[in-house]
């Protein structure tokens, strides 16, 4: 079976339709987070920001598309699962837990889940 049908190849997903975009998801452990802000600087699409002041300061993920359109509800819009936030975080408080996928022309094929580097020694 072909990886992608002709119809899929030809159709461009609508980015303001959350059905067409399954975005990557960031998981934040607010108990470990000390609000140092390094991940905010490291984030590729700049979707991390702080909300509130003082004790209530909390790391949040912007759920709006950068083009100003839809809010994608449950998912963390526009995360690309690069995990640069995880690498820079000294507290181990943040991590991308799933990768992005789009429908139609940009759907992911022949790919699996996120995995750490493997040695294949055993």
């Amino acid at each position, binding site marked *: 079976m072909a990886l992608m049908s002709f119809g899929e190849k*030809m159709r*461009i*997903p*609508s*980015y*303001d339709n959350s059905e067409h*975009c399954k975005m990557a998801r960031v*998981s*934040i*452990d607010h108990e470990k987070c000390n609000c140092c802000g*390094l991940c905010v*600087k*490291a*984030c*590729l*699409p*700049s979707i991390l920001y702080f909300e509130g002041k003082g004790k209530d300061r909390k790391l949040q993920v912007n759920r709006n*598309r*950068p*083009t*100003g*359109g*839809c809010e994608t509800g449950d998912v963390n819009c*526009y995360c*690309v*699962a*690069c*995990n*640069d936030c*995880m*690498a*820079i975080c*000294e507290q*181990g*408080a943040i*991590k*991308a*837990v799933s*990768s992005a996928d*789009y429908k139609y*022309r*940009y759907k*992911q094929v*022949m*790919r*699996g*889940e*996120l*995995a*750490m*580097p493997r*040695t294949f*020694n055993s």
Partner: protein
Amino acid sequence: MEKKELEQGTEPSVDDDWNPVERVILERRSVRYYRDRQVPENLVRRILEAGRFAPSAGNYQAWRCIVIRDRGMIDAMEKDVRMMCRMLKPVLAWETSPLGPVAKPVAKTLTWLLPNKLHHEPYGAIPAMADGKVGVFHGAPTLILLLKDKRGPGKPEVDIGCCGENIVLAAHSHGLGTCWVGFVELLRQNPIWKKRLGIEYPYEICEGIALGYPVGKPDGMVPREIHHVKWFENGTMKVLT
């Protein structure tokens, strides 16, 4: 739920199975937050030397480097990249476009014609850059521009990728941070920058690499998607994951 997910595989591998080269490759992360401290000139020259010895088609070495270390010049480039993004934004951001309902079919047709340039990653980044929400050079004190020799054999962009990867890995091995900045190509046809940088035929801007000392410790192994590998051996085929 979230906590449980965090506990699974968050710890980077601590075993010593990786050799030093693998470690440099696996731990290198893109850096988007640089210290003001300038990189010593000899160090920049040393990492460019790593690029000079990259493999290339027919050993043609279809690359050339321009190093920019003037803060004012880098800021001016960033401003002009953003200006180009502002010009593209009304076409791409159909939700907010002044073109109204025409914008969406226009944007989709352009994406159809330019599947790589308007892949959803740059597509989303262009309006965000126009609004200043996403950084371009991230305040790096040094910028390396990789130029392409348009007459290069085969696929000169691939050769430039090899050259640039040598540069970023050598830089990482010296404790420097790097970030590929493909958006400099928006200045490729810009006559002001072509003149200011002295870029003439056969060269054209291909890629940019931001270089500097990182803030914090951005290096480390992270999880990435597994790509399925087709494996032919002994007359059989298997897919490895």
